[in-house]
Protein backbone atom coordinates (compact mmCIF):
# COMPACT_ATOMS: atom_id res chain seq x y z
CA UNK A 1 0.00 0.00 0.00
CA UNK A 2 1.36 3.39 -0.91
CA UNK A 3 0.93 6.51 1.15
CA UNK A 4 -2.22 7.52 -0.69
CA UNK A 5 -3.83 4.16 0.02
CA UNK A 6 -2.72 4.29 3.64
CA UNK A 7 -4.32 7.68 4.10
CA UNK A 8 -7.54 6.30 2.60
CA UNK A 9 -7.37 3.48 5.11
CA UNK A 10 -6.80 5.90 7.99
CA UNK A 11 -9.76 7.91 6.79
CA UNK A 12 -12.01 4.85 6.68
CA UNK A 13 -10.92 3.63 10.10
CA UNK A 14 -11.52 6.99 11.71
CA UNK A 15 -14.89 7.25 9.99
CA UNK A 16 -16.07 3.82 11.08
CA UNK A 17 -14.69 3.79 14.62
CA UNK A 18 -17.19 3.97 17.46
CA UNK A 19 -14.98 6.32 19.45
CA UNK A 20 -11.90 8.46 18.90
CA UNK A 21 -8.89 6.33 17.97
CA UNK A 22 -5.44 6.70 19.49
CA UNK A 23 -2.32 6.74 17.34
CA UNK A 24 -1.30 3.51 18.99
CA UNK A 25 -4.52 1.81 17.88
CA UNK A 26 -4.02 3.19 14.41
CA UNK A 27 -0.47 1.86 14.36
CA UNK A 28 -1.78 -1.61 15.20
CA UNK A 29 -3.92 -1.57 12.05
CA UNK A 30 -1.37 -0.12 9.66
CA UNK A 31 1.96 -1.45 8.40
CA UNK A 32 4.73 -1.04 10.92
CA UNK A 33 6.69 1.57 9.06
CA UNK A 34 3.69 3.81 8.33
CA UNK A 35 4.25 7.44 9.20
CA UNK A 36 1.05 7.84 11.15
CA UNK A 37 1.54 11.34 12.59
CA UNK A 38 2.50 12.68 9.19
CA UNK A 39 -0.45 11.06 7.47
CA UNK A 40 -2.86 12.29 10.13
CA UNK A 41 -1.60 15.79 9.52
CA UNK A 42 -2.12 15.36 5.78
CA UNK A 43 -5.61 14.07 6.34
CA UNK A 44 -6.39 16.92 8.71
CA UNK A 45 -5.22 19.33 6.03
CA UNK A 46 -7.44 17.71 3.41
CA UNK A 47 -10.48 18.20 5.58
CA UNK A 48 -9.53 21.67 6.83
CA UNK A 49 -12.08 23.60 4.78
CA UNK A 50 -14.69 20.89 4.52
CA UNK A 51 -17.96 20.37 6.40
CA UNK A 52 -16.28 17.79 8.56
CA UNK A 53 -12.94 18.22 10.34
CA UNK A 54 -10.41 15.75 11.59
CA UNK A 55 -9.76 16.78 15.16
CA UNK A 56 -7.51 15.63 17.94
CA UNK A 57 -9.38 14.74 21.12
CA UNK A 58 -6.72 14.43 23.79
CA UNK A 59 -4.37 11.87 22.29
CA UNK A 60 -7.04 10.44 20.02
CA UNK A 61 -8.38 11.36 16.65
CA UNK A 62 -11.92 11.66 15.35
CA UNK A 63 -14.01 13.29 12.64
CA UNK A 64 -16.29 16.04 13.88
CA UNK A 65 -18.71 18.36 12.20
CA UNK A 66 -17.14 21.74 11.42
CA UNK A 67 -18.04 24.01 14.35
CA UNK A 68 -19.23 26.86 12.15
CA UNK A 69 -21.98 24.62 10.74
CA UNK A 70 -23.41 23.78 14.14
CA UNK A 71 -26.24 26.30 14.00
CA UNK A 72 -27.32 25.08 10.56
CA UNK A 73 -27.55 21.52 11.71
CA UNK A 74 -30.23 22.36 14.19
CA UNK A 75 -33.77 21.98 13.13
CA UNK A 76 -36.62 23.77 14.80
CA UNK A 77 -39.71 21.78 15.33
CA UNK A 78 -42.99 22.54 17.01
CA UNK A 79 -44.81 19.69 18.61
CA UNK A 80 -48.43 19.88 19.64
CA UNK A 81 -49.08 18.10 22.86
CA UNK A 82 -52.25 17.33 24.69
CA UNK A 83 -52.19 18.11 28.35
CA UNK A 84 -52.93 15.24 30.69
CA UNK A 85 -56.06 15.34 32.78
CA UNK A 86 -54.01 15.52 35.96
CA UNK A 87 -52.16 18.54 34.67
CA UNK A 88 -55.34 20.26 33.59
CA UNK A 89 -56.95 19.63 36.98
CA UNK A 90 -53.95 21.02 38.76
CA UNK A 91 -53.87 24.00 36.47
CA UNK A 92 -57.55 24.71 37.07
CA UNK A 93 -57.14 24.52 40.82
CA UNK A 94 -54.20 26.87 40.70
CA UNK A 95 -56.19 29.29 38.57
CA UNK A 96 -59.23 29.25 40.85
CA UNK A 97 -57.49 29.10 44.20
CA UNK A 98 -54.25 30.96 43.71
CA UNK A 99 -52.07 31.44 45.61
CA UNK A 100 -52.19 27.80 46.51
CA UNK A 101 -49.61 25.33 47.82
CA UNK A 102 -49.04 21.91 46.50
CA UNK A 103 -50.49 20.35 49.63
CA UNK A 104 -53.66 22.37 49.13
CA UNK A 105 -53.90 21.28 45.53
CA UNK A 106 -53.61 17.69 46.63
CA UNK A 107 -56.31 18.21 49.21
CA UNK A 108 -58.69 19.58 46.61
CA UNK A 109 -57.89 16.92 44.05
CA UNK A 110 -57.90 14.24 46.75
CA UNK A 111 -54.95 12.73 44.85
CA UNK A 112 -51.24 13.13 45.36
CA UNK A 113 -49.76 15.40 42.70
CA UNK A 114 -46.79 13.89 40.97
CA UNK A 115 -43.75 16.07 40.60
CA UNK A 116 -44.06 15.87 36.80
CA UNK A 117 -47.44 17.54 36.79
CA UNK A 118 -46.20 20.87 38.08
CA UNK A 119 -43.14 20.52 35.84
CA UNK A 120 -45.31 20.24 32.76
CA UNK A 121 -47.26 23.32 33.76
CA UNK A 122 -44.05 25.19 34.42
CA UNK A 123 -42.68 24.02 31.06
CA UNK A 124 -45.80 25.27 29.36
CA UNK A 125 -45.14 28.56 31.11
CA UNK A 126 -48.64 28.64 32.56
CA UNK A 127 -47.85 28.73 36.26
CA UNK A 128 -45.33 30.54 38.39
CA UNK A 129 -44.31 30.49 42.03
CA UNK A 130 -46.03 33.33 43.86
CA UNK A 131 -44.36 33.31 47.25
CA UNK A 132 -44.30 31.27 50.41
CA UNK A 133 -47.05 30.58 52.86
CA UNK A 134 -46.37 31.58 56.43
CA UNK A 135 -47.00 28.12 57.79
CA UNK A 136 -44.58 25.49 59.03
CA UNK A 137 -42.29 24.42 56.24
CA UNK A 138 -43.00 27.69 54.42
CA UNK A 139 -44.36 25.93 51.31
CA UNK A 140 -44.22 27.65 47.93
CA UNK A 141 -47.51 29.00 46.67
CA UNK A 142 -48.42 28.85 42.99
CA UNK A 143 -50.36 31.10 40.70
CA UNK A 144 -50.98 31.34 36.98
CA UNK A 145 -48.80 33.38 34.67
CA UNK A 146 -49.56 36.04 32.10
CA UNK A 147 -48.99 33.40 29.43
CA UNK A 148 -51.82 31.45 30.97
CA UNK A 149 -54.18 34.40 30.72
CA UNK A 150 -52.94 35.01 27.23
CA UNK A 151 -53.44 31.44 26.09
CA UNK A 152 -56.94 31.15 27.49
CA UNK A 153 -57.94 34.62 26.44
CA UNK A 154 -58.64 35.88 29.97
CA UNK A 155 -58.05 39.35 31.30
CA UNK A 156 -57.59 38.09 34.81
CA UNK A 157 -58.42 35.05 36.88
CA UNK A 158 -61.35 37.00 38.27
CA UNK A 159 -63.00 36.42 34.89
CA UNK A 160 -63.15 32.69 35.49
CA UNK A 161 -66.77 31.61 35.94
CA UNK A 162 -67.77 30.52 39.44
CA UNK A 163 -69.18 27.14 40.38
CA UNK A 164 -72.76 28.31 40.08
CA UNK A 165 -72.14 29.66 36.63
CA UNK A 166 -70.46 26.45 35.60
CA UNK A 167 -73.49 24.57 36.78
CA UNK A 168 -75.83 26.88 34.94
CA UNK A 169 -73.78 26.42 31.81
CA UNK A 170 -74.27 22.67 32.14
CA UNK A 171 -70.59 22.01 32.74
CA UNK A 172 -71.21 20.16 35.98
CA UNK A 173 -73.08 16.98 35.53
CA UNK A 174 -75.24 15.55 38.22
CA UNK A 175 -73.95 12.58 39.96
CA UNK A 176 -75.82 9.36 39.24
CA UNK A 177 -76.44 6.80 41.95
CA UNK A 178 -76.91 7.55 45.68
CA UNK A 179 -80.13 9.16 44.50
CA UNK A 180 -82.44 8.21 47.33
CA UNK A 181 -80.28 8.80 50.34
CA UNK A 182 -78.58 11.88 49.03
CA UNK A 183 -81.81 13.50 47.98
CA UNK A 184 -83.61 12.45 51.10
CA UNK A 185 -81.19 14.12 53.43
CA UNK A 186 -79.95 17.00 51.37
CA UNK A 187 -82.42 19.71 52.17
CA UNK A 188 -79.98 22.41 51.22
CA UNK A 189 -79.92 21.29 47.63
CA UNK A 190 -83.51 22.02 46.86
CA UNK A 191 -84.38 20.19 43.71
CA UNK A 192 -88.15 20.11 43.57
CA UNK A 193 -88.38 18.65 40.11
CA UNK A 194 -86.59 15.53 41.25
CA UNK A 195 -88.58 12.48 42.24
CA UNK A 196 -86.27 10.74 44.65
CA UNK A 197 -88.36 7.61 45.11
CA UNK A 198 -88.57 6.48 41.54
CA UNK A 199 -85.83 4.01 41.92
CA UNK A 200 -86.89 2.44 45.17
CA UNK A 201 -89.43 -0.17 44.24
CA UNK A 202 -92.29 -0.60 41.88
CA UNK A 203 -94.42 -0.97 44.97
CA UNK A 204 -97.79 -0.47 43.30
CA UNK A 205 -97.94 -4.20 42.87
CA UNK A 206 -98.12 -4.77 46.58
CA UNK A 207 -100.82 -2.30 47.32
CA UNK A 208 -102.28 -3.14 50.61
CA UNK A 209 -105.73 -1.92 51.10
CA UNK A 210 -105.93 1.69 52.07
Amino acid at each position, binding site marked *: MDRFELIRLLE*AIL*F*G*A*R*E*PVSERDLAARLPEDADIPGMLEDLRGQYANRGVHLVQVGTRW*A*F*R*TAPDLGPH*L*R*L*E*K*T*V*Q*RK*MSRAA*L*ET*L*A*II*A*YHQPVTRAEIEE*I*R*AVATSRGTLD*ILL*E*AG*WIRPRGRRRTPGRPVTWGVSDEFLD*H*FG*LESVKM*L*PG*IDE*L*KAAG*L*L*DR*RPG*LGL*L*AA*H*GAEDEAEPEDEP*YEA*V*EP*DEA*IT*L*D*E
Partner: protein
Amino acid sequence: MADTHTENGELTDSEPFEDAQPDYLGAMADSLVLDLDGFEGPIDVLLMLARTHKVDITKISILALAEQYLEFIRRAHALRLEIAADYLVMAAWLAYLKSRLLLPASDEEDEPTGAELAARLAFQLQRLEAMRKASETLMQRPQLGQDFFARGEPDPLIVDTTTVFNATLYDLLTVYGQTRERQGTSTLQIEPVTLYSMDDAMERLGKLLGATPDWTTLAQFLPEEVGDELVMRSAIASTFAASLELARQGKLQLNQSQTFAPIYVRARQDVSDDG
Protein backbone atom coordinates in the same frame (compact mmCIF):
# COMPACT_ATOMS: atom_id res chain seq x y z
CA MET B 1 -22.31 -45.31 -18.69
CA ALA B 2 -21.40 -44.51 -22.22
CA ASP B 3 -23.33 -47.45 -23.59
CA THR B 4 -26.54 -46.58 -21.82
CA HIS B 5 -26.56 -43.00 -22.93
CA THR B 6 -26.73 -41.39 -26.31
CA GLU B 7 -24.65 -38.39 -27.10
CA ASN B 8 -27.19 -35.95 -25.92
CA GLY B 9 -27.42 -37.71 -22.60
CA GLU B 10 -30.74 -39.41 -23.00
CA LEU B 11 -31.23 -42.85 -21.61
CA THR B 12 -31.73 -45.51 -24.20
CA ASP B 13 -31.80 -48.58 -22.02
CA SER B 14 -35.04 -49.31 -20.26
CA GLU B 15 -33.36 -50.82 -17.21
CA PRO B 16 -30.13 -49.02 -16.97
CA PHE B 17 -28.92 -49.52 -13.44
CA GLU B 18 -30.77 -52.32 -11.76
CA ASP B 19 -28.25 -55.10 -12.11
CA ALA B 20 -25.20 -53.30 -13.30
CA GLN B 21 -22.48 -52.47 -10.86
CA PRO B 22 -23.32 -49.33 -8.97
CA ASP B 23 -22.26 -46.40 -11.07
CA TYR B 24 -22.00 -42.85 -9.82
CA LEU B 25 -25.64 -42.16 -10.53
CA GLY B 26 -26.74 -45.14 -8.54
CA ALA B 27 -24.51 -44.21 -5.66
CA MET B 28 -25.78 -40.70 -5.82
CA ALA B 29 -29.36 -41.80 -5.88
CA ASP B 30 -28.75 -43.82 -2.74
CA SER B 31 -27.17 -40.92 -0.98
CA LEU B 32 -30.05 -38.79 -2.19
CA VAL B 33 -32.46 -41.15 -0.56
CA LEU B 34 -30.59 -41.06 2.68
CA ASP B 35 -30.32 -37.30 2.62
CA LEU B 36 -33.81 -36.54 1.46
CA ASP B 37 -34.30 -34.41 4.55
CA GLY B 38 -31.79 -32.00 3.16
CA PHE B 39 -33.90 -31.26 0.12
CA GLU B 40 -36.63 -28.75 -0.27
CA GLY B 41 -39.02 -30.86 -2.19
CA PRO B 42 -38.89 -32.64 -5.53
CA ILE B 43 -37.80 -29.64 -7.58
CA ASP B 44 -34.75 -29.37 -5.40
CA VAL B 45 -33.93 -32.99 -6.13
CA LEU B 46 -34.48 -32.45 -9.85
CA LEU B 47 -32.18 -29.47 -9.75
CA MET B 48 -29.55 -31.52 -7.98
CA LEU B 49 -29.86 -34.31 -10.55
CA ALA B 50 -29.67 -31.78 -13.35
CA ARG B 51 -26.53 -30.22 -11.93
CA THR B 52 -24.80 -33.53 -11.60
CA HIS B 53 -25.91 -34.50 -15.03
CA LYS B 54 -24.91 -31.43 -16.96
CA VAL B 55 -23.17 -28.27 -16.04
CA ASP B 56 -25.27 -26.14 -18.30
CA ILE B 57 -28.78 -26.38 -17.08
CA THR B 58 -30.19 -24.66 -20.14
CA LYS B 59 -29.19 -27.67 -22.22
CA ILE B 60 -30.45 -30.31 -19.86
CA SER B 61 -32.40 -33.16 -21.36
CA ILE B 62 -35.72 -33.21 -19.60
CA LEU B 63 -36.37 -36.79 -20.63
CA ALA B 64 -33.12 -37.98 -19.07
CA LEU B 65 -33.88 -35.99 -15.99
CA ALA B 66 -37.32 -37.52 -15.68
CA GLU B 67 -35.79 -40.96 -15.99
CA GLN B 68 -33.30 -40.29 -13.26
CA TYR B 69 -35.89 -38.90 -10.92
CA LEU B 70 -38.16 -41.90 -11.49
CA GLU B 71 -35.23 -44.18 -10.92
CA PHE B 72 -34.45 -42.38 -7.70
CA ILE B 73 -38.01 -42.78 -6.49
CA ARG B 74 -37.94 -46.48 -7.46
CA ARG B 75 -34.81 -46.98 -5.41
CA ALA B 76 -36.21 -45.20 -2.42
CA HIS B 77 -39.26 -47.39 -2.80
CA ALA B 78 -37.11 -50.53 -2.97
CA LEU B 79 -35.38 -49.45 0.21
CA ARG B 80 -38.82 -49.10 1.77
CA LEU B 81 -38.15 -45.51 2.69
CA GLU B 82 -41.05 -43.32 3.31
CA ILE B 83 -41.42 -40.70 0.64
CA ALA B 84 -43.44 -37.58 1.09
CA ALA B 85 -46.51 -37.18 -1.07
CA ASP B 86 -45.18 -34.30 -3.12
CA TYR B 87 -42.26 -36.43 -4.29
CA LEU B 88 -44.72 -39.01 -5.50
CA VAL B 89 -46.87 -36.39 -7.19
CA MET B 90 -43.80 -35.23 -9.03
CA ALA B 91 -42.95 -38.80 -9.99
CA ALA B 92 -46.43 -39.29 -11.41
CA TRP B 93 -46.21 -36.05 -13.30
CA LEU B 94 -42.81 -36.95 -14.71
CA ALA B 95 -44.04 -40.40 -15.74
CA TYR B 96 -46.87 -38.68 -17.56
CA LEU B 97 -44.45 -36.25 -19.15
CA LYS B 98 -42.23 -39.10 -20.23
CA SER B 99 -45.14 -40.84 -21.93
CA ARG B 100 -46.13 -37.63 -23.67
CA LEU B 101 -42.59 -37.13 -24.87
CA LEU B 102 -42.23 -40.67 -26.17
CA LEU B 103 -45.63 -41.08 -27.76
CA PRO B 104 -46.44 -39.26 -30.94
CA ALA B 105 -48.30 -36.03 -30.27
CA SER B 106 -52.03 -36.39 -30.59
CA ASP B 107 -54.03 -33.95 -32.63
CA GLU B 108 -56.37 -33.02 -29.81
CA GLU B 109 -55.01 -29.58 -29.09
CA ASP B 110 -56.67 -28.97 -25.77
CA GLU B 111 -53.78 -30.25 -23.73
CA PRO B 112 -50.25 -28.97 -23.83
CA THR B 113 -47.90 -31.13 -25.83
CA GLY B 114 -45.10 -33.07 -24.23
CA ALA B 115 -42.61 -30.58 -25.56
CA GLU B 116 -44.55 -27.73 -23.98
CA LEU B 117 -44.66 -29.50 -20.64
CA ALA B 118 -40.96 -30.24 -20.87
CA ALA B 119 -40.31 -26.60 -21.66
CA ARG B 120 -42.28 -25.57 -18.62
CA LEU B 121 -40.27 -27.82 -16.39
CA ALA B 122 -37.05 -26.61 -17.96
CA PHE B 123 -38.14 -23.03 -17.36
CA GLN B 124 -39.01 -23.73 -13.76
CA LEU B 125 -35.64 -25.35 -13.14
CA GLN B 126 -33.72 -22.61 -14.89
CA ARG B 127 -35.56 -19.88 -13.06
CA LEU B 128 -35.00 -21.49 -9.68
CA GLU B 129 -31.39 -22.14 -10.47
CA ALA B 130 -31.00 -18.52 -11.50
CA MET B 131 -32.48 -17.35 -8.20
CA ARG B 132 -30.16 -19.64 -6.23
CA LYS B 133 -27.20 -18.24 -8.05
CA ALA B 134 -28.50 -14.74 -7.49
CA SER B 135 -28.81 -15.29 -3.76
CA GLU B 136 -25.26 -16.61 -3.67
CA THR B 137 -23.97 -13.64 -5.65
CA LEU B 138 -25.83 -11.33 -3.35
CA MET B 139 -24.29 -12.84 -0.28
CA GLN B 140 -20.84 -12.59 -1.81
CA ARG B 141 -21.22 -8.85 -2.17
CA PRO B 142 -19.56 -6.59 0.37
CA GLN B 143 -22.06 -6.11 3.15
CA LEU B 144 -22.70 -3.22 5.48
CA GLY B 145 -21.26 -3.81 8.90
CA GLN B 146 -19.02 -6.61 7.54
CA ASP B 147 -17.06 -5.23 4.63
CA PHE B 148 -17.98 -1.59 4.57
CA PHE B 149 -19.13 0.57 7.39
CA ALA B 150 -21.38 3.39 8.41
CA ARG B 151 -20.16 6.26 10.55
CA GLY B 152 -19.17 4.63 13.82
CA GLU B 153 -19.77 7.61 16.02
CA PRO B 154 -22.49 9.70 14.45
CA ASP B 155 -22.79 13.39 15.19
CA PRO B 156 -26.42 13.65 16.06
CA LEU B 157 -28.45 16.23 14.26
CA ILE B 158 -30.05 18.46 16.80
CA VAL B 159 -33.74 19.03 16.66
CA ASP B 160 -34.95 21.88 18.85
CA THR B 161 -38.43 20.96 19.84
CA THR B 162 -40.89 23.52 21.03
CA THR B 163 -43.84 21.94 22.71
CA VAL B 164 -47.15 23.65 22.36
CA PHE B 165 -49.89 22.47 24.67
CA ASN B 166 -53.28 22.66 23.16
CA ALA B 167 -55.70 22.95 26.06
CA THR B 168 -58.78 25.11 25.68
CA LEU B 169 -60.66 27.14 28.22
CA TYR B 170 -63.47 24.64 27.86
CA ASP B 171 -61.14 21.81 28.92
CA LEU B 172 -60.01 23.82 31.88
CA LEU B 173 -63.49 24.70 33.10
CA THR B 174 -64.92 21.22 32.64
CA VAL B 175 -62.06 19.65 34.47
CA TYR B 176 -62.39 22.14 37.31
CA GLY B 177 -66.11 21.54 37.59
CA GLN B 178 -65.56 17.81 37.74
CA THR B 179 -62.86 18.17 40.33
CA ARG B 180 -65.12 20.21 42.55
CA GLU B 181 -67.94 17.74 42.15
CA ARG B 182 -65.69 14.92 43.12
CA GLN B 183 -64.62 16.90 46.11
CA GLY B 184 -68.27 17.52 47.03
CA THR B 185 -69.17 13.88 47.11
CA SER B 186 -66.08 12.95 48.99
CA THR B 187 -67.31 14.90 52.02
CA LEU B 188 -70.89 13.64 51.83
CA GLN B 189 -72.23 12.42 55.14
CA ILE B 190 -74.51 9.48 54.83
CA GLU B 191 -77.37 9.86 57.30
CA PRO B 192 -78.57 7.00 59.42
CA VAL B 193 -81.37 5.16 57.70
CA THR B 194 -84.78 6.18 59.04
CA LEU B 195 -86.79 3.74 56.99
CA TYR B 196 -89.00 1.12 58.61
CA SER B 197 -86.96 -2.03 58.65
CA MET B 198 -87.94 -5.65 58.14
CA ASP B 199 -86.82 -6.42 61.67
CA ASP B 200 -89.15 -3.76 63.05
CA ALA B 201 -92.02 -5.20 61.06
CA MET B 202 -91.34 -8.78 62.14
CA GLU B 203 -91.26 -7.77 65.76
CA ARG B 204 -94.39 -5.68 65.56
CA LEU B 205 -96.35 -8.25 63.56
CA GLY B 206 -95.31 -11.10 65.86
CA LYS B 207 -96.34 -9.15 68.93
CA LEU B 208 -99.73 -8.07 67.62
CA LEU B 209 -100.58 -11.39 66.00
CA GLY B 210 -101.18 -13.24 69.28
CA ALA B 211 -103.95 -10.82 70.05
CA THR B 212 -105.72 -11.24 66.72
CA PRO B 213 -106.99 -14.77 66.11
CA ASP B 214 -109.43 -13.61 63.42
CA TRP B 215 -108.79 -12.46 59.85
CA THR B 216 -107.60 -8.89 59.95
CA THR B 217 -106.32 -6.75 57.10
CA LEU B 218 -102.58 -6.42 56.99
CA ALA B 219 -102.96 -2.67 56.93
CA GLN B 220 -104.09 -2.82 60.56
CA PHE B 221 -100.65 -3.87 61.60
CA LEU B 222 -98.90 -0.83 60.15
CA PRO B 223 -97.35 1.47 62.70
CA GLU B 224 -99.43 4.55 63.39
CA GLU B 225 -96.81 7.03 64.47
CA VAL B 226 -95.26 7.36 61.01
CA GLY B 227 -95.74 10.73 59.39
CA ASP B 228 -93.25 10.80 56.53
CA GLU B 229 -94.72 9.27 53.39
CA LEU B 230 -91.46 7.63 52.40
CA VAL B 231 -91.15 5.92 55.78
CA MET B 232 -94.80 4.90 55.53
CA ARG B 233 -94.18 3.22 52.21
CA SER B 234 -91.22 1.41 53.62
CA ALA B 235 -93.41 0.26 56.52
CA ILE B 236 -95.95 -1.16 54.06
CA ALA B 237 -93.26 -2.99 52.18
CA SER B 238 -91.54 -4.40 55.22
CA THR B 239 -94.77 -5.39 56.94
CA PHE B 240 -95.84 -7.28 53.85
CA ALA B 241 -92.46 -8.97 53.61
CA ALA B 242 -92.58 -9.82 57.31
CA SER B 243 -96.01 -11.40 56.89
CA LEU B 244 -94.64 -13.63 54.13
CA GLU B 245 -91.71 -14.62 56.27
CA LEU B 246 -93.91 -15.46 59.27
CA ALA B 247 -96.27 -17.44 57.03
CA ARG B 248 -93.26 -19.38 55.79
CA GLN B 249 -92.32 -20.09 59.38
CA GLY B 250 -95.86 -21.35 59.93
CA LYS B 251 -96.73 -18.68 62.46
CA LEU B 252 -99.54 -17.01 60.53
CA GLN B 253 -101.86 -17.47 57.61
CA LEU B 254 -102.52 -15.13 54.70
CA ASN B 255 -105.56 -14.73 52.54
CA GLN B 256 -106.21 -12.59 49.50
CA SER B 257 -109.31 -13.13 47.40
CA GLN B 258 -107.97 -11.65 44.17
CA THR B 259 -105.20 -9.52 42.77
CA PHE B 260 -105.06 -6.09 44.43
CA ALA B 261 -107.69 -7.19 46.93
CA PRO B 262 -106.93 -6.50 50.58
CA ILE B 263 -104.65 -9.02 52.23
CA TYR B 264 -105.97 -10.66 55.40
CA VAL B 265 -103.86 -12.15 58.08
CA ARG B 266 -104.43 -14.21 61.24
CA ALA B 267 -102.45 -16.32 63.65
CA ARG B 268 -102.04 -19.91 62.55
CA GLN B 269 -104.89 -22.28 63.35
CA ASP B 270 -105.15 -26.02 62.90
CA VAL B 271 -105.85 -27.13 59.39
CA SER B 272 -108.89 -29.11 60.42
CA ASP B 273 -110.41 -25.94 61.72
CA ASP B 274 -110.38 -24.04 58.50
CA GLY B 275 -109.34 -25.10 54.99
